[in-house]
């Protein structure tokens, strides 16, 4: 890479117009983005997680703001793959940018099952395979912490689709570099680095956590250095492009992640405050790079 970097606009051979992707779980399936007309600067949308059956998600409250970030405990709430295929993807067809569908599961097989069903649609470009969720069938640790399991999940997905897919890794245990290599071996066309870091807040007076599941996903602009380090480590170890996820709130942050080796950069929590974040980030980047 040459420095200062130019703003990349192509990915997987497709024109993305922008390196900024909206992160899974923070942009729905894109329908609301159409209503709000906040798609300027969006390179691609990643849908919220889709599982085979519908999931009502975790009991409320599901969000808790901490002094420097946000804890979320959504619990993969979604209407299930068949509902998504029939009722949501047709609406998402109006998106002016590519859509990736984030796929989750509780067993190695579920990922491929979900993808098989979605293969009927022509709306989406590809998938993001979310191996950060707990492997219910196999003890409850996240799939992503075991490279052997990541390999099997990726192989399963490769078998049922020829679309590109990224495997979204977890930073909570295991060896991310090994898991990334396993994803590539299994046929992944990219890896996403990374899902949320486990976090928790307890009320010291009562000893209780406000979020019922206690441990939740923590996001914060202060986590940027953690994501930069992991993007750098993984992008130096694998041949497929790395999509970064986490810590972005300024145009400078996107440029830093690109410099660290990311090819696309997701933004999530920032959208909670700035629905038009993608356009704002692009404007800031153009100003900084003089493009």
């Amino acid at each position, binding site marked *: 890479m040459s420095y200062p970097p130019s703003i990349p606009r192509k990915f997987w051979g497709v024109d993305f117009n922008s390196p900024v992707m909206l992160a899974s779980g*923070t942009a729905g399936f894109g329908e609301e983005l159409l*209503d*709000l007309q906040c798609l300027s600067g969006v390179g691609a949308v990643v849908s919220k997680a889709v599982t085979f059956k519908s999931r*009502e998600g975790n009991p*409320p409250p599901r969000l*808790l*703001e901490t002094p420097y970030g946000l804890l979320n405990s959504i619990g993969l709430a979604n209407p299930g793959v068949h509902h998504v295929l029939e009722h949501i993807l047709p609406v998402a067809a109006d998106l002016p940018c590519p859509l990736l569908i984030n796929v989750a599961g509780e067993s190695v097989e579920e990922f491929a099952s979900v993808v098989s069903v979605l293969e009927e649609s022509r709306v989406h470009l590809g998938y993001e395979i979310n191996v950060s969720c707990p492997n219910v069938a196999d003890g409850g640790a996240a799939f992503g912490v075991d490279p052997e399991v990541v390999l099997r999940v990726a192989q399963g997905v490769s078998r049922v689709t020829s679309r590109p897919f990224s495997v979204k890794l977890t930073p909570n245990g295991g060896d991310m570099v090994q898991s990334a290599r396993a994803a590539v071996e299994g046929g992944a066309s990219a890896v996403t680095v990374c899902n949320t870091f486990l976090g928790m807040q307890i009320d010291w007076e009562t000893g209780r956590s406000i979020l019922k599941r206690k441990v939740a996903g923590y996001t914060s602009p202060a986590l940027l250095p953690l994501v930069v380090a992991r993007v750098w480590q993984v992008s130096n170890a694998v041949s497929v492009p790395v999509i970064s996820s986490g810590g972005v709130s300024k145009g400078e942050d996107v440029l830093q992640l690109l410099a660290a080796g990311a090819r696309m950069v997701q933004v999530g929590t920032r959208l*909670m*405050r700035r629905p038009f974040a993608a356009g704002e980030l692009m404007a800031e980047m153009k100003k900084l790079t003089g493009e």
Partner: protein
Amino acid sequence: MSVIRDYDCLVKHSEQVLPGVIRIVFECMEMVSNALPGQFVQIEPSTGTFPVTRRPITINRLTDDGFELLFDVVGRGTELMGEMRTGETVRILGPLGRGWMVHPDSTWLLVGGGLGAAGFQFLIDTVGSAKVLIGASSSRRVIPLESLSCTVATEDGSTGETGLVTALISRDLLEEADSIAVCGPVAMMEAVWNTIPSMYRDKVQVSTESRMGCGWGVCDGCSIPVSSGGYKKCCKDGPVFPGSDIDWKRWKEAGL
């Protein structure tokens, strides 16, 4: 459906109307032509990095060239909002959510608990005439309302009747109303719901609250347990729901 936009709104006026309760008037013509009673806005409390989300506040009323909010200072976000001064510009997304289902020519009964009555003014201004019942801990928590008919109950008796708002609800009032709007803390709303005999419950709409991420339906963070099982989104399916939609038991368990 109203058009949601992210506006830079000018603060025209800010004042403390009750201890710890702030009223801010913003300039925003587009909101005047778009907003409906019961809708809310998402305010960016600071131009700094933290907090990372906005704060949802119900539109208390429309003004000639904008709108007015009324809120309680309860934490960091509302504290920062209380420091907003005339002349400042604030980022505000709105109008958001589904407000009160307003049937033309209907007779309204409004039951509010404390700051839950914030937003009633917009409804009163829209429906023309309404009977309003307000409950509060003390006179220091009774927000100002311009209404032809407003009865107040305070727990400490410092103004109006002494006791809870539920005591003000009479069969006559329920009978007479076509629509009943309830807004306040969860426990108060449940008490009101339980006070209302089932034959009148179809008239009841309640305005819910939840911790919010986005405010416009993308994050699934604001779930309200509904009686059909599962959840609905406070920000998009609500905040106003038919009272019968709510699963009161599971909602109380949320401990919001």
